[in-house]
């Protein structure tokens, strides 16, 4: 539905307005997490620490924007019926770059993230944006669409990570947070365990969807 609106809007707006439109769509109107609930698998797992989440999101932003742009560059020469396979290989190419860079310059982080860096390949949001935007628009637009979608995804996951780390461990980026580390706060161990991630994501989806529903009602 949002795609249709985007299609219609594109003819009327000036180039700069188009870009801000992409920005709003990726970060809010069509946000990958709370609107589409896509691609949470590979990243939710590392949201127990803010630092891990940041690295993982940086990897995702890099992969998503560049693979969407690459798909867009190749879109005319790509045979229609094997395009999924080609897209997967393009995505895998960028993920391997991320993986090798991490292994070389930050082996500790690479070990912490384990298989999850590789799992960016099957993150539905990457493939989803390549299919929805990369295959049908020019490279610059595809790149921006990928970038803003990845940013929209990252900011939600960072919210989740901040809550999980502060409530569960009393630290933020491994530095102690005054009240939560002290004797007055009982650490919510559940927040750093898997169920905490599910609860936190559900609450985030709930809050943001409610805000959006209110906005739609007032818009009418």
């Amino acid at each position, binding site marked *: 539905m949002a795609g249709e609106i985007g299609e219609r809007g594109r003819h009327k707006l000036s180039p700069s307005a188009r870009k801000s439109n992409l920005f709003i769509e990726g970060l809010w109107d069509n946000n990958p997490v709370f609107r589409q609930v896509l691609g949470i698998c*590979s990243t939710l797992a590392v949201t127990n620490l803010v630092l891990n989440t940041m690295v993982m999101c940086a990897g995702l932003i890099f992969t998503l924007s560049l693979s969407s742009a690459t798909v867009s560059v190749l879109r005319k020469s790509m045979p229609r019926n094997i395009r999924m396979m080609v897209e997967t290989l393009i995505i895998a190419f960028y993920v391997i770059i991320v993986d090798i860079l991490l292994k070389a310059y930050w082996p500790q982080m690479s070990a912490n993230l384990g298989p999850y860096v590789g799992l960016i390949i099957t993150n*539905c949001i990457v493939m989803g944006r390549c299919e929805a935007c990369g295959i049908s628009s020019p490279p610059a637009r595809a790149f921006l669409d990928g970038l803003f979608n990845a940013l929209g995804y990252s900011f939600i996951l960072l919210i989740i990570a901040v809550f999980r780390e502060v409530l569960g461990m009393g630290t933020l980026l491994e530095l102690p947070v005054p009240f939560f580390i002290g004797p007055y706060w009982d650490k919510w161990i559940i927040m750093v365990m898997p169920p905490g991630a599910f609860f936190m994501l*559900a609450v985030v989806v709930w809050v943001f969807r409610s805000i959006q*529903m209110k906005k739609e009602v007032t818009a009418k």
Partner: protein
Amino acid sequence: MNISAEIWQAFVVCVAAIFTQNILLSYFLGLCPFIGVSREIKAAFGLGAAVIFVMVSTCMLNWLAYRYVLLPLNLHFFRFILFIVIIAAFVQFVEMVIDRFSPRLYQTLGVFLPLITVNCAILGASLFMVIRNYTFIVAVGYGLGSGIGWFVAIVAMAGIRQKLKNDRIPPGLQGAGITLIITGLMALAFIGFTGVLQGG
């Protein structure tokens, strides 16, 4: 290690992958189809069964490819591409075979097969198996356990969601939101299995 000890270890790993280290509930893999397809028990059952089958088979294939092709050639970093290609090719192949020989099975199982290629749980199981250095038999046990664990979770969720149909849920929480909360409760329940098995 002799063979009987290895089979015992495979069994332990298998049970651990179903209960204490469920690939969905503690590693968050395969969440997208889990949320999307868990509305009806029948569909959940079909997808779950297909996942078990594909996961065991691709674990075997990927293990062999990794051990006998990538390691000798020292192309360790190439595993992402190799695994995903093997998974996609295998799924395509199975789809064609089922379509050719058993149209009835194709109707129940076949529609779910394309979904499986992009299921992170399948690739995740293969990557975990490599990182943990499992032997072949243990890797098969792990694939089987992970598949069954995913199956159990999605069928249970579909059952719960069918009961929820008539309940009044806040509008912002409908669909994905309530599913995630129930998944959290399920994960909490599965933590209760910790300590049943040591090691794994």
